[in-house]
């Protein structure tokens, strides 16, 4: 299970790197076509760039849930009681879970909406972009199952150490 998640995580990282590299191309083409005659003026470059960008943001957000690097605010003091820390961690992750479930449930409706639309310039089906939201929801769900597993495993380890 964990090996599968690791593989999926590496795939996301690779996709993010590729998309970021690819994103440079359409914008450079736009400048080149305006100031030189080397390539004709395509109008789809801007739209493709925007759509790659949407995927970059959501893939980055998926990865950051597994890394635990989304920005949070550390105002409450940390407790030395493992039970209190367990509850705090659970609250944080349940909140992310709630967002994940919202993305899955309403991402489905959003996807249906997208399957009926095409993009304005290049005529791409909008589903190819809107689907990023339900995919983000499912990805978070998978990563969160792993997180919950780890949180309880840590808690049990710490409790057995403490009782000794």
């Amino acid at each position, binding site marked *: 299970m964990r090996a599968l998640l690791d593989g999926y995580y590496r795939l996301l990282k690779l996709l*993010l790197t590729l998309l970021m*590299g690819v994103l*440079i191309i359409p*914008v450079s083409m736009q400048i080149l076509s305006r100031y030189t005659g080397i390539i004709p003026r395509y109008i789809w470059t*801007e739209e493709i760039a925007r759509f790659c960008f949407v995927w970059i943001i959501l893939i980055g*957000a998926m990865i950051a849930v597994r890394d635990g690097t989304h*920005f*949070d*605010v550390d105002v409450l003091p940390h407790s030395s009681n493992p039970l209190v820390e367990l509850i705090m961690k659970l*609250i944080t992750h349940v909140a992310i879970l709630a967002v994940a479930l919202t993305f899955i449930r309403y991402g489905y409706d959003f996807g249906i909406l997208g399957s009926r639309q095409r993009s304005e310039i290049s005529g791409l089906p909008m589903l190819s972009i809107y689907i990023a939201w339900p995919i983000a929801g499912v990805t978070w769900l998978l990563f969160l199952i792993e997180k919950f597993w780890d949180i309880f495993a840590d808690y049990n380890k710490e409790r057995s150490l403490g009782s000794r």
Partner: protein
Amino acid sequence: MGPGEVAAILFGVFAVLVILRVPVAFALGLAVVPVFFISERLTPVLLLREMFKSYNAFVLLAVPFFLLAANLMNSAGITDRLIKLARAMVGHLPGGLGHVNVVVSMLFAGISGSSTADAAGIGSLLIPQMKKQGYDTSFAVAITACSSVMGVIIPPSILMVIWGGLMSVSIGGLFLAGVVPGILIAGSQMIVVYIYAKRRGFPVDTRATFMELLAAIFAATLALMTPLIIVGGIVGGFFTPTEASVVAVVYSLFLGVAVYRSVKPTEIPKVLYESARFAALSLFCIGTASAFGWCLAFFKIPAALVAQIEMMGLGVIGTGVMCALAFLLIGMFIDAVPAIIILGTVLFPVTQHVGMHPIHFAIIGVVSLGFGLVTPPYGLCLLITASIGEIRMIDALRDVLIILIPMVGVLLFIIVAPDVILALPRLIMPKYIQ
């Protein structure tokens, strides 16, 4: 339900979740979900739609590119060249490396649009050097963090790109308006360094010879062309901000790989990944913050606020002080990007109502939020430099507050003297700025 109740739900849920350490982006998203069930006309699909609409903006593409350019400059060793230049310029003053730190931040701010890249790049080089020369670690950490604030004030600036895109303010105009406040902040910090140096007896370096200065200028010339290309390109109307950011990326790649040959092509994927992931974190916040802002607007909360503030009868200066306080407060707790979307868009109609210039308002907002980068509990730049200096954030706090005092003076000056701030944009881009 009236605007008051909805505002209470939105801000209440958000605040409770953030205090419970729920990541800001998720707390914003969760706060709007209950509101979508209030009215039959609303559905949570709107959350996703608003997120998509906010990401689908060409101007925001500049954010990952400016970050990428800054990271490429860091790995190309350009920061090191700028430090050598700063050292030849101000290294002989009392508190040498402190001044070097401020000047190099100013130079780097002209190349990068992000304070965090500035803090990480300069901090990892200068903090160890300052420690070795006998500076207090807390001072080294504090001055690096505070001077990195200039990254978002001196053009180019990621925050100004977001601000301009969001509130339809000329980004070229914002960039030009950031120059004077940036220089004033650098000046105020150099005064603080001087006073520290006199009181604590910080070491002094030998003055660089004229030839050394020339050599340092020569070594940094190509890097120092970057601000000219970016700001000149945008202000002169050659590029859009997004295109300028890509030009900055291509230029820094060219410098790193072909000219200085300090970036190995095999390192590039890692820089691409790091930049994309960091940009995605703040951009993801933009999506949920936009949905939050959309709810505020749907229930006419900004309008209610305008009516409230109108009764207080504040003028431009009073409103400016109020905005600065609001941004300083929110900047202590959340990242600058969602703060701009939530608070900036709410306060914008208020400032328009009293006749404040949109660029003036933007500069007050960006400078105040810049202070938030070094104030706990959520001060990203201070977190970065404290971890480089291997001390706790709390231990650097006293020095940070001392450095901030004259900076608050600069902020007050910005509020009371809009004409000074607007002079440069008016001079260079008169067509766009009345």
